[in-house]
């Protein structure tokens, strides 16, 4: 798959963070380290905004339960 282009015209990675909602306990660790604030936190779940996520993978490192993985876009 070719790299997608965001509205700002910036080239993004082919990867995207993906959360397993059943494992996630909404601790927000991932959101606090996301360099582009691509993780929205609500009362009961988190949402990764695909249009913002650069696929950098920092969020994957900090999750206490391993609920986030990088997937192909």
């Amino acid at each position, binding site marked *: 798959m070719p790299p997608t282009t965001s509205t700002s015209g910036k080239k993004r990675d082919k990867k995207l963070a993906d959360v397993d909602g059943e494992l996630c*306990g*909404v*601790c*927000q*660790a991932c*959101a*606090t*380290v*996301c*360099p*582009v*604030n691509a993780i929205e*936190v*609500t*009362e009961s779940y988190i949402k990764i905004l695909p249009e913002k996520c650069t696929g950098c993978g*920092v969020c994957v*490192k*900090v*999750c*206490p*339960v*391993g609920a986030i993985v990088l997937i192909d876009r």
Partner: protein
Amino acid sequence: MTNHIIVVGAGPAGSSAAMGALRAGAKVTIVDRKTNVGIPVQCGEAIGKTGPGVAEIEIPEESIRAPVRGFRIYSPGQVSVDYATKEPSGFIIDRRVFDKELFARATEAGADSLLGARVLDVTRSNGTIDGAVVRYNGQRQTLKAQIVIGADGVNSQIARLTGLRKAYKPDDIDSCFAYEMANCNLEVTDLMEFLLGSEVSPRGYIWIFPKGNGRANVGIGIGGGIETKTAKEYLDHFLKNHDVAKRQLNDAKVIETRVGALPVCGPNKVNVVNGALLVGDAAGQIHPITGGGMGYAMVCGSIAGRVAAESAQKETVTATNLQQYEKEWRKLYGAEFDQSLRLRELILQTEDATLDKLANIVTGESIVQLTAGKKVKIFMKAMSTGDRKLITLMQELRKLRMV
């Protein structure tokens, strides 16, 4: 919107800020994205009665589960160091009751509340923040105020929107996982137990806090950058294999699981801008070694609320005026946080074997002093061991004027 303050976040920082502002005569609205304040619990639930400023905070009685008198620390090689006061010096509480009660009291004292409202943005006029945009009932709404207090926790959006904080680096935070357990067979029921070591909990610690009636809060915080295993995997491994766990938690049953994130890199450099200020986890007001934050959040919260109310009354809500808040809270805790951060760096560089040797020569009392940023007398004792690495550590501590 004269004299009106919006507090974002109904945790200990937010409810205390609301109280502080109400007492100083302001009109307050507390906004939280949660519909159930205090849930889920993401905490070790330990709070001290002592410490600068803490005497004035009110710990709701109905939240207290067990009094504690001190701690037992296990070094990596299981050398244990105890510290205990005669009378209880703190409590293990039930966080869901604690947060709810503080929030209820703030509303009873006159605060309005808007639950289920998530803050998305702030509004500004002439560069001064004058409100917040929330998503409430599926719709965007703008709430106007003279001052916005960001008490919105570790992932503070107010901190990001005001530019007071960028994303944390993984090692700036601890990644936490905990169980509430029943049927525990604790060896001490009025001490908090801590276990250190690169094997059990790299860059962090494991805690076992007694909650009374055979219940305990058992958890772990590891450095956010640790990639060998997840926090949960480290804790599960400990429970299955470690002597200290086997002795006390062999028959224990899990009654709740918890996750959490904890900034351990010290407070933000600046916590005020025109029209807004940050408090609690949003400000990074967490002890870099113990990870304790509730007491600081409450004390700093009431200062923040009062200063905000006074500034709003005088209609001078510039960063310069709100600076009074920074001045007051840093006077109480600034030095303690700074020294602890340096001590933390040193401990993180120290090998497990040297920590064992240190455990052999320190008393519980000196650990209390050190983590409070105060000087202790262990230099000569360390020198007399003749251990090269321990002596190097002491020389580093001496440079920091800690021994």
